[in-house]
């Protein structure tokens, strides 16, 4: 759903005069929602901008992606980024297959840690309520 949401947002921003580039690791979902420009990285979901702890690779990926702002000249075009997660692409066999890893869709804030919860609740005690 993330790729769909991002594509919808990009289309609105672009119509408001802001040039957009969507990164993507789910090519079929991106093509369906059809944002103005897409840079596709064939990595497992959760790594749209690179591998953890490898800032040099993250920089290379971002440079290749940003280049699409000028190299893509047709609305809806996709640039395929020249990076592979692994030699054999074996991660693709199990992606989104077999079992449901999603967490329950709870409607209360889901903190990374209890410490975050305390800090946010302390902050909320002294500030006016906000929705965003």
């Amino acid at each position, binding site marked *: *759903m*993330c*790729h*769909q*949401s*991002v594509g919808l*947002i990009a*289309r*609105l*921003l672009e*119509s*408001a*005069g*802001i*040039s*957009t*580039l*969507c*990164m993507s*690791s*789910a090519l*079929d979902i991106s093509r*369906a*929602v*059809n944002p*103005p420009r897409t840079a596709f990285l064939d990595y497992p*979901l*959760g*790594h*749209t*901008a*690179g591998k*953890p*702890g490898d800032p040099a690779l993250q*920089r290379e990926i*971002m*440079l290749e*992606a*940003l280049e699409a*702002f*000028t190299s893509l000249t047709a*609305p*809806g075009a996709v640039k395929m980024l020249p990076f592979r997660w692994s030699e054999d692409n074996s991660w*693709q066999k199990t992606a*989104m*297959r077999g079992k*449901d890893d*999603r*967490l*329950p*869709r709870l*409607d209360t*804030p*889901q*903190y*990374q840690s209890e410490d*975050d919860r305390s*800090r*946010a609740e302390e902050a909320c005690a002294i500030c006016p309520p906000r929705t*965003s």
Partner: protein
Amino acid sequence: MPVEYISRIRDLYLSLGYGAYKWTVNETPPPWQPLRKPLAQCRLALLASGGIYVAGQTAFHYKDDTSFRAIPRDTAVADLRATHFAYDLTDARRDPNVVFPIGTLRGLAQEGVIGALAGHAYSFMGGIYSARRVTEELAPALCDALEREQADAALLVPV
């Protein structure tokens, strides 16, 4: 060949007894606004859907949360947190740059590849099942925010 997520997700949902999700399909060409100046002179805004927040902010919830967080562009990567119901958070928590490349973009702004980053990056929980709520609630709110930031361009990073 890239993974065909639409058919895999349909099969997964069916095996769990759910109906097929109706994906948004836009047959019409998207709007088109070429960069008005070179990227090296543009103010670029980062928007990302990986459920990133700063320690001290209220976290996202998992049920069509259409709120967003404004994250100051100088925020230390160590203060970023990740919460989301639909992807493996392990690597995003280890290095938030993999889904929220604020450190990467700061580096490229320093190098002069990008003119500047907008004052804030914007983060949300992209796993919103209702495309209507994205279009009617989240997208216009983000558009207003980017206009206030005077952003020339936006980089959007889904998960």
